[in-house]
């Protein structure tokens, strides 16, 4: 996260990830309306189809980065004592890392 935010300014990271997620949502909605999966097998192949897996991985990557930048900004605005601020930021980072670890095996699946 640090490497990304020092290479690109945070506001640009936020906009690029937002644009990607917007395109992904439109794509996913269109795909959903084309064939609504009914039942486990259809749902699984809808999520893990070749035309979905990579876009979905990128979506989660964009989502985690976007959530980090956004939550970080909220923390900077409202939490001023430095130790508390660092503690909350660490909790957020841990939570987002846990989400990444939870979602990775499903998409690799």
């Amino acid at each position: 996260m640090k490497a990304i935010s020092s290479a690109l300014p945070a506001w640009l990271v936020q906009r690029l990830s937002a644009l990607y997620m917007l395109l992904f949502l439109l794509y996913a909605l269109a795909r959903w309306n084309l064939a609504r999966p009914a039942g486990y097998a259809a749902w699984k192949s809808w999520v893990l189809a070749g035309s979905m897996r990579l876009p979905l991985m990128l979506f989660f990557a964009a989502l985690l980065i976007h959530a980090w930048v956004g939550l970080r900004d909220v923390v900077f605005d409202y939490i001023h004592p430095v130790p508390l601020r660092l503690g909350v930021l660490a909790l957020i980072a841990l939570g987002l890392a846990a989400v990444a670890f939870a979602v990775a095996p499903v998409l690799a699946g």
Partner: protein
Amino acid sequence: MALPSDTRRARPRFLNLLRIRYPVGAVCSFAHRVSGVVLALTLPALVWLLRLSLDGPSGYRAATSLMQELPPKALAAVLIWALAHHVLAGVRHLLKDIDLGSTLAVARRSAWSVNMLGVLLALLALGALW
């Protein structure tokens, strides 16, 4: 555009949410934040639900029957509001970046539309869920 330093110092600078006024653009912007935080806080639960739904036919059944319950449906309606508002307000933000709709009159109209559309989409989702 450097302001005279005394003007800058005189400008009130606080983020006390109870003391600032809320024109329509501020409501849109504040709700953008709130919806973002709501979406981020529920992300772990949503990922858990996704995992459950992909965890074999029994997991899929558990996930779909969970979504028949009242509290998850109510939460889903809140999340659809949050997502709709966050995306629409985000698009409004991006359009302002390229100088579309940054005049006050247009900005007020678009803020009003975003606020209303978010609620409308949530109501439509409620209708679809029940």
